[in-house]
């Protein structure tokens, strides 16, 4: 059990810290959260700065255009960028954290060369077209159909809750390439495609979230042609590829935010000391307990990362353990914030309150808590599947 960093890793940390202190003041002001094109420009601009400084795709393999950094360096990167208050991946989320890694792991050399560099440079962003109106938790029930026609698939159907769809260039799309047939498990006929979002036949209809902004959208696909060359993995083998994507999504995608939670918690404690909420025993102790929570979640991340480094592979189902606990802890953080703020907790002008509203999605998006519990119980504890 070793938590110390090597000299090389510490050198990496101080170079990064140094660069951040110079780079962050050069950033333009943060855009209005409801202005999607401006948000996209801001997020991809930050990605470009990282690219130019050699920090893009840090933990991606070198063959995929990444830096091949050690998992520890990746954690240091997450710690330092969050600590410095650098922008979050934002619109680059899907491309950098799960579509990209999936293509790196499962794509052909041509596919890697086509799609990965623009993600790293911040030239192109991706969205995720998995969920459908009748296929959420039961993702394998999806019905969007792709029929082969020469060198193309012709895709018809609809997707829902597609984050960033309005401004995305590409979509990691799950389609059904074999008809649903009671004698074959329904996840057998699924295929993973890269869909260009400007193809004819695509309509994007923004959906307004409870936070007031249009965070995600419905996507309608009407005979959209997608070249067969855009298929990642074999036809009807998309479920296996999807499991790779989901392992990345649940395994590593949120860990950086734990550091952000610790920053929010410190700020909240300062507020509580100022406004007197600190004198309430229960409020103060809840803040203390949250300190334990986020410290432990960061340690759990280090534990998981060390385990996967030794195992030499993609993150395992341990990600579900992390995701479950993290999503609830973060919601508890904002509940405590509301306690500290009192009546101000009803003021939407406060970033913290917008964050509180956003946090309500954490136990739903990327697999609900109920689904994560099923995964933990069945795949880690080996309990039987229900009938």
């Amino acid at each position, binding site marked *: 059990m070793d938590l110390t960093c090597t000299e090389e890793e510490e050198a990496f940390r101080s170079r990064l810290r140094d660069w951040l202190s110079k780079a962050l003041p050069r950033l333009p002001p943060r855009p209005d959260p409801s202005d999607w094109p401006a948000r996209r420009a801001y997020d991809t601009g930050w990605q470009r700065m990282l690219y130019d400084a050699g920090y893009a795709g840090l933990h991606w393999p070198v063959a995929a255009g990444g830096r091949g950094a050690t998992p520890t360096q990746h954690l240091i990167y997450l710690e330092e960028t969050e600590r410095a208050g650098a922008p979050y991946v934002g619109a680059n989320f899907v491309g950098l954290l799960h579509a990209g890694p999936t293509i790196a792991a499962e794509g052909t050399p041509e596919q890697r060369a086509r799609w990965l560099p623009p993600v790293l440079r911040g030239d192109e962003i991706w969205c995720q077209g998995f969920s459908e109106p009748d296929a959420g938790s039961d993702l394998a029930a999806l019905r969007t159909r792709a029929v082969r026609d020469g060198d193309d698939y012709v895709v018809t159907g609809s997707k829902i809750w597609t984050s960033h769809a309005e401004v995305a260039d590409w979509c990691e799309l799950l389609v059904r390439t074999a008809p649903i047939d009671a004698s074959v498990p329904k996840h057998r006929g699924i295929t993973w495609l890269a869909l260009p979002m400007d193809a004819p036949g695509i309509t994007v209809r923004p959906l307004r979230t409870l936070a007031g902004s249009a965070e995600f959208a419905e996507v309608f696909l009407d005979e959209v042609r997608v070249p067969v060359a855009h298929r990642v993995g074999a036809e009807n083998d998309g479920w296996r590829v999807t499991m790779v994507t989901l392992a990345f999504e649940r395994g590593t995608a949120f860990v950086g935010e734990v550091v952000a939670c610790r920053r929010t918690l410190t700020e909240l*404690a300062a507020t509580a000391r100022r406004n007197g909420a600190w004198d309430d025993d229960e409020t103060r102790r809840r803040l203390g*307990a949250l300190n334990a929570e986020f410290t432990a979640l960061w*340690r759990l991340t280090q534990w998981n990362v*060390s385990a996967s480094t030794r195992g030499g592979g993609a993150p395992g189902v341990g990600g579900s353990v992390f995701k479950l606990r993290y999503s609830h802890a973060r919601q508890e953080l904002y509940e405590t914030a509301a306690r500290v703020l009192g009546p101000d907790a009803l003021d939407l002008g406060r970033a913290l309150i917008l964050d509180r509203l956003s946090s309500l999605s954490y136990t739903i998006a990327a697999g609900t808590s109920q689904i994560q519990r099923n995964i933990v119980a069945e795949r880690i504890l080996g309990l039987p599947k229900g009938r």
Partner: protein
Amino acid sequence: MDFQLTADQKALRAAMRDLLAARLDRAALRAAVERPALDRELWRALGEAGFFALRLPEREGGVGLTLADAALVFEEAGRALLPGPLVATHLAAGTEPGAATGESVVTRVDGPLVGWLAEADYVQGDAEGAVALRSVDPLTPLHRTRGTRTYVPEAALLAAAEQVGSASRSTELAVQHARSRAQFGQPIGAFQAVKHLCADMLVRTEVARAAVYAAAVTQDPCEIAGAKLLADEAAVRGARDCLQVHGGMGFTWEAEVHLHLKRAWVRAEQWQSAKEAAEVLAAAL
């Protein structure tokens, strides 16, 4: 950074698990419950295995290992429900005669409760006027004292490690039962209501374990407080959920789970309570 057990640590943990499996199986545990006296022979065996002298430097006759190594063996002690003032005796190795070798039993007055007062050869702190309670835990005789807490970070950490062992054992027991007990024509573990209890037990245990191991490595007082807080919760709630999964059987004296719950309650009051830990953690913000 390689935050995983080393080969030596795995071997240490396995050796402790084997020792306890051989000496404190279910029958021995039941016998201990009926006759709650300290098993001196087992105590000496622990001493021989280096349990108490683990962190004592080699030149003083100890094993010269670290707090992280000690956390692993205390975790095993917690799993096995090993009774006795383990933490106090371990801390006294090197100061009280015979503590390091398991020849003597040491307890310590630390706050309102003290365990094993009548059995101890050495009592650290002022136990004057201590009054015997009818202890909720049949395997931990308790006295109420007027003593105050003398905070010893290592003690809180080792107690937390025991809690993690207990939480982990409760999870295992629940899962075993959920797989084998059938109702409505299928194992109860196929029902989500049961499955989700088990999943939450595992999550609490894993988070607490990461906290305990990290605190053992850094020895940071704030991390230790966090570890204690999370481990107490994992052990207490884990045992309660395990009891629920066992149904009526869980409510009997026969099932092991009530012992885990009661011991977890006792440890939650020892060395650093949830309230005290939360205050330390808040003050650090």
